[in-house]
């Protein structure tokens, strides 16, 4: 076959313009496959055709492309979007799920820690409070014992002092008996005539009200002299006012703070030196 003549016949152009009958087309296609020169010529024709089209192009209306793309979209794009949605769904949904799982564990852990810590805090607080209470109790006991010790010690000192007075021969013991013979009231005065010192010791006296006090009197030259007041519950020896030349001692019940003159009606005990 004469290829040049075949090309010159213009059948390739017809083939390109798609104006051949189906039978002719098949014939051309067979020859194209057989002769590379024909394929080359066909390419050249296509080049020129494309070149003409490009050279004679006219810019279409601006909205044409958008119209085309939107009409495409109607069916296929809808499907496509659904597809991408379906694709995205397993992507998107499991994430929050795992997050939720994480959060659940984290929250659970936090709550557990909070509960344990609270319990421990409560427990330690209780223990601390118990220890604190025990400590306070011990401190109180300690101070109480110290106080008691001091009291006992003071009392012992007092007793030692009392014993000193009692055993001192310069002190004369003056016993005072009950004025009312039916009562068994009794008290004593230790009086040092050299130094004029005097101490009172109650054996038994009746209980007085808050507003009352006992008052010790000395009779000097027939006149009662105040030697001071004392409460009914005084223990041990009580230092009274100094007195000279006393011939007699007596105790009366007086209003609190004492009186200038003894209320003789309420004389409880009395005794001569």
């Amino acid at each position: 076959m004469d290829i040049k003549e075949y090309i010159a016949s213009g059948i390739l152009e017809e083939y390109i313009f798609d104006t051949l009958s189906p039978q002719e087309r098949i014939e051309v296609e067979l020859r194209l496959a057989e002769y590379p020169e024909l394929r080359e010529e066909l390419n050249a024709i296509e080049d020129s055709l494309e070149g003409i089209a490009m050279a004679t192009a006219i810019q279409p209306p601006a909205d044409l492309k958008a119209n085309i793309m939107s009409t495409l979209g109607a069916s296929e794009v809808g499907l496509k979007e659904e597809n991408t949605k379906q694709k995205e769904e397993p992507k998107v949904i499991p994430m929050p799920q795992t997050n939720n799982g994480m959060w659940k564990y984290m929250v659970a852990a936090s709550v557990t820690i909070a509960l344990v810590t609270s319990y421990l805090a409560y427990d330690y607080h209780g223990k601390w409070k118990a220890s604190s209470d025990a400590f306070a109790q011990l401190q109180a006991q300690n101070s109480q014992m110290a106080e008691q010790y001091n009291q006992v010690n003071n009392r012992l000192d007092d007793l030692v002092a009392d014993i000193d007075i009692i055993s001192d021969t310069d002190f004369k013991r003056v016993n005072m008996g009950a004025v009312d013979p039916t009562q068994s009231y009794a008290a004593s005065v230790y009086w040092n005539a050299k130094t004029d010192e005097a101490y009172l010791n109650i054996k038994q006296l009746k209980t007085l009200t808050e507003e009352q006090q006992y008052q010790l009197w000395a009779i000097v030259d027939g006149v009662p002299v105040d030697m001071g007041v004392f409460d009914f519950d005084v223990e041990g020896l009580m230092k009274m006012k100094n007195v000279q030349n006393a011939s007699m001692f007596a105790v009366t019940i007086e209003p609190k703070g004492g009186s200038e003159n003894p209320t003789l009606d309420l004389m409880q005990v009395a005794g001569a030196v």
Partner: protein
Amino acid sequence: MILRLKNQDKDALSYLYDKYGAALYGAVQRIVQDEDVAAEVVQDIFLKIWNKIGMYDPQKGRLFTWMLNLSRNAAIDKIRSKEIKRSAKTDSIDEYVYTIDRQNSTETSVDGIGVRELMDDLVEEQRFVLLKVYFEGFSHSEIADEYDIPLGTVKSRLRSALKHLRNKVQL
């Protein structure tokens, strides 16, 4: 590109439109002689490309050739369905082709080669056949019948015209 189109990739069609839309619109516009109709036809063409891409066989020719033939056929179908008389527009082919070109002078492609420039140095016979076939959608035999030109002559003139232009429109 073809694979992407066959996979219904919208971006591929978008690219195709950006590259060849104006060329196809130009070809269609010169056949249908109406901007609105041309737009309508081009829209149909791209939908056809989108839907019928499976029918395109790369072995038989380039994608653009296939698209151009689709466009020309669609444009020709359009004017025939509108019963536009061929005789009415064949009276002064050169005039109207050039007129369109002048009307669309601002819209022609950036390379600036208009149809006039492209065709100027073709001999009259060659230009006539090319315009008839390419811009008016005549088949070779239709030209032969209508203008009493032997079919072989039509073919060879068309061939000569394309061969001449081949050198002019370097891609």
